[in-house]
């Protein structure tokens, strides 16, 4: 085990977490991420037993989750495995695929509502140009957010994850903070 101590994307030793009315926003540094792309002519694998979802979708199961990022391309999430070489493990489970480590490429903020889906919808309306009504549980997409490039995952009616490039994590946190305050 390395003796170097990691820091979070916001430059702290502990992940950020804050409550805004019914919304709890927290940074999730523990999830490992790796991209998976099919090689030409390869058949779609079931990495770690997970069926890979179709365009615009996210699916979870068998300790991992995946969302579609482009034709023949997915991002695989593995909770609490950020510190491991998850990409290497995934490579072993996905023959015929190109795997690339993305754990620190992206910073994940989890937004959880304590009062149903309305606060999540209100938040989304202020952040992204997506039809919220059509972005139900199990939806995932990349889009623009305040001139940043983000992935949005609707994990359930009352849970939304927003991922941004690690270098813009502070900026996204600021936007989430301001937006959540403005809803109050």
């Amino acid at each position, binding site marked *: 085990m390395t003796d170097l101590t990691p820091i979070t994307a916001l430059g702290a030793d502990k992940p950020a977490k804050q409550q805004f009315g019914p919304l709890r926003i927290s940074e999730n540094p523990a999830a490992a991420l790796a991209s998976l792309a099919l090689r030409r002519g390869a058949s779609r694998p079931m990495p770690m037993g997970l069926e890979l979802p179709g365009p615009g979708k996210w699916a979870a199961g068998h300790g991992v989750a995946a969302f579609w990022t482009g034709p023949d391309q997915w991002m695989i999430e593995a909770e609490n495995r950020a510190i491991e070489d998850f990409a290497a493990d995934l490579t072993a489970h996905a023959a015929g695929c190109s795997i690339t480590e993305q754990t620190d490429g992206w910073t994940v903020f989890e937004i959880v509502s304590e009062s149903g889906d309305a606060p999540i919808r209100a938040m989304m309306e202020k952040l992204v140009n997506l039809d919220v009504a059509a972005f139900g549980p199990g939806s995932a*997409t990349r889009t623009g957010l305040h001139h940043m490039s983000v992935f949005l995952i609707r994990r359930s009616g009352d849970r939304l994850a927003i991922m941004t490039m690690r270098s813009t994590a502070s900026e996204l946190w600021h936007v989430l903070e301001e937006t959540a305050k403005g809803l109050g």
Partner: protein
Amino acid sequence: MLIPHPLLGLRDAQEFTYLGDARLIERPDGMAEGAEAAFADYVYLRDNPAGVHRELWFHEQGDRSWLVVTRDTVTHEILGAELARDVALRGKGGAA
């Protein structure tokens, strides 16, 4: 504008980056006889129709697909969109 993404449905044009004429897909062979003349055409000559135009859009804030979008440049009506990769493969006589 809204672009009808073949896989993701209607998406706002703000998510896309525009390139131009879809003929850019038909890149000449640089090792062929007369390549320089072919490239002069390819690089510099474009039709600029007031009307139906096939053009390349990149879904930069999206799935990173290049699309061939058919658009009326006068009305901005969009008549269709397909993955540029499919168009390119068809052009090469391969399977999409």
